[in-house]
């Protein structure tokens, strides 16, 4: 194991480091480590999570891992860049993978990578079908509450991402299909929703409300206290009797499934805490994205989830011996006073703009590092154009690996 991943996994006490520079995240060491079985990419929306996941998976595959990448809601363009027109719940092979030049022991087989997209409703339906007899399953699948819950409830995507991850992992362990799973996480309201999904589901299932709704079906008469009567009448008043009845039917129907649901959610949660999992927090050099990243880092620590490091995407690239912004602007102004019609003042002003951006980004990263000095970090420069093909993804992969 490399020093970088080593440190992140067996951190003991606060590091008494005064260095402003975060330790370097060694992405290749992480991808090459056979102990790494699951990589979870998390972060707020619009920071390039899905592209990063795909690029990591591709790089791992072309370094000899058998990889599947589970994306949540990829842009059509990204699916196409992997040579797949339409991604769905079934893993599909990414064509045209090659061993990079200079691979030491080049195997005879071609590298292998599958890609898939989470189909939330399909995944949920499958869980129901696997847990209940056909008749009961049908009853559940048709209930309006189930339909709404499985297709549009804000937490369902997170929960189903966990469920799918658990499934793929169990299948991979059994059949030896993959030795690395790269997971993208849903574009949540908050990056933390992903971790909270199983807990929320459990608390829903254990909640007093559900127990109350089940009470009439189970029927001990002494349950019908004054409080419950008030409760039912208030509910009826707000929801209407028909809604309440649908809800009761739904809850009664899925009651028997709950144990299975909860157990699986719990298993996947525990799987994420094992050493085989590595969380990568993805951010952009923006205050909101880095704030979310900081929350996530703290939360992972609290939940004893193994954090591998931070990826800061979309960074402004500068060369080492740069002219600072003020100097560049002053020089541009001097040239303009001479009224020479050249492109140079424009170039200097562009340079100044770039330096200001870079300075601001560096300050934001420094703040993050000051609060979380132990988190290995890699900064990925923004590409001038979007990723269109495997070569584009390979380039992102190289940047992630710091080469």
């Amino acid at each position, binding site marked *: 194991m490399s020093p970088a991943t080593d440190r992140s996994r067996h951190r003991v006490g606060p590091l008494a480091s005064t260095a402003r520079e975060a330790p370097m995240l060694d992405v290749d060491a992480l991808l090459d480590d056979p102990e790494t079985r699951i990589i979870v990419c998390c972060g707020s929306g619009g920071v390039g999570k899905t592209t990063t996941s795909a690029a990591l998976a591709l790089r791992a595959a072309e370094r000899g891992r058998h990889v599947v990448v589970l994306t949540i809601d990829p842009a059509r363009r990204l699916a196409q860049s992997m040579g797949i027109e339409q991604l769905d719940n079934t893993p599909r092979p990414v064509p045209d993978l090659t061993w990079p030049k200079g691979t030491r022991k080049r195997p005879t087989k071609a590298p292998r990578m599958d890609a898939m997209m989470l189909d939330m409703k399909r995944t949920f339906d499958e869980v129901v079908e696997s847990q209940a007899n056909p008749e009961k399953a049908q009853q559940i699948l048709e209930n309006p509450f189930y339909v709404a819950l499985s297709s549009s409830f804000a937490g369902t995507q997170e929960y189903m991402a966990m469920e799918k991850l658990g499934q793929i992992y169990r299948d991979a362990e059994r059949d030896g299909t993959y030795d690395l799973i790269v997971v993208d996480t849903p574009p949540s309201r908050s990056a933390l929703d992903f971790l909270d999904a199983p807990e929320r589901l459990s608390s829903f299932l254990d909640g007093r409300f559900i127990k109350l709704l089940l009470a009439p079906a189970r029927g001990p008469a002494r349950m019908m206290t004054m409080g419950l009567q008030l409760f039912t009448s208030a*509910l009826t008043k707000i929801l209407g009797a028909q809604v309440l009845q649908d809800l009761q039917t739904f809850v009664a129907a899925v009651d028997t499934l709950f144990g299975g649901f909860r157990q699986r959610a719990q298993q996947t949660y525990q799987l994420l805490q094992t050493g085989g999992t590595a969380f990568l927090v993805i951010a952009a050099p923006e*205050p909101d994205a880095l704030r979310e990243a900081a929350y996530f880092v703290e939360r992972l620590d609290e939940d004893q989830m193994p954090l591998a490091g931070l990826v800061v995407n979309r960074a402004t690239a500068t060369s080492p011996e740069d002219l600072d912004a003020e100097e560049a602007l002053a020089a541009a102004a001097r040239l303009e006073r001479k009224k020479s019609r050249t492109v140079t003042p424009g*170039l200097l002003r562009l340079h100044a703009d770039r330096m200001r951006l870079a300075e601001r980004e560096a300050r934001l990263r420094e703040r993050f590092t000051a609060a979380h000095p132990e988190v290995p970090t890699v900064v990925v420069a923004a590409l001038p154009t979007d990723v269109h093909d495997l070569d584009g993804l390979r380039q992102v992969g190289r940047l992630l690996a710091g080469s």
Partner: protein
Amino acid sequence: MASRAQGSTSRTPDSRRAESPAGSGDDGDWGGVRLHVVTGKGGTGKSTVAAALALALASHGRRVLLCEVEGRQGIARMFDVDPLPYAERRIATGLAGPDGRAGAVHALHIDAESALMDYLAMYYKLGRAGRALDRFGVVEFATTIAPGVRDVLLTGKVYEAVNRNSRNRGAVRYDAVVLDAPPTGRIVQFLDVNAEVAVLARMGPIKHQSDAVMELLRSPQTAVHLVTLLEEMPVQETADAIEELQAADLTVGAVVVNQVRPDELDDESLAAARSGGLDSDRIAADLTAAGLEHGETLVTDLLHEAHDHAERRAVEDEQRLRVAGLGRPTYELPRLATGIDLGGLYELAARLREEGMA
């Protein structure tokens, strides 16, 4: 950069120019709109644009309410005030109009739990029963698990702020409400509460509430503005969202292009920068003339940066054409190199005003 912004911002039908409550003439392209819903792909700066729009609308003594529903406390951070409670607060003076008169921006952080209790108190005299609901975990259930109810409550509160009338004594009435809405990926689901709830509640008070909300959202009083960057994925997502919004009968407003790069090079120079045709000797001579002694590496760096910039500008131009093809009024905001602070928000507000959005 103003020269590069699309000058065609007054394409709104005259019917939109219904009289505004303040009755002033220069109320921008969206004078008849009471509720501005601002959405965009994550990372495009929709909250920034919502805040700038609120400031821009708040002139001539007008009062504008800026709402957030995602629990981020983004408004408090942008305006540098304490975290907002579930109560309306005056947070800033608007951008003064040409006559020098400003208005005020108020803010409201809407959370579903408070909105539910508010809703219950307003529409029902539940008393003990209401507390029973809370005790039995219904509040938690309704606001986190029950499908669609959360969105009904959040949009319901916005609806109340827009439709506020004199019956609600003591409450501030607003000339416009700006909603910092969920991102484009969830916006139709969020706004189309009727479709969500109709499945569950075919009658009863929740159904009535969602019908009333939908009527407002589908009326010309509402416009859904989309924020994008001039990059492929956000523009694609904007195009997809426009289609989905229209399919759901929601009124698409403007496209606000955010974080536009500086415009320091003319087309000819951009082309030269891309093809490597800039005159490096001339640049070196200029640098020396300007008193910079950084030698050849600086020239190489500048040429490299120019190439990179020109590539991005080419992508921007391509995407700008796609945005124009969406057929919506379009406004452009510059990328501020130093980041967004309160001063930056006023700067962006002034730009929106100049371009006619407010």
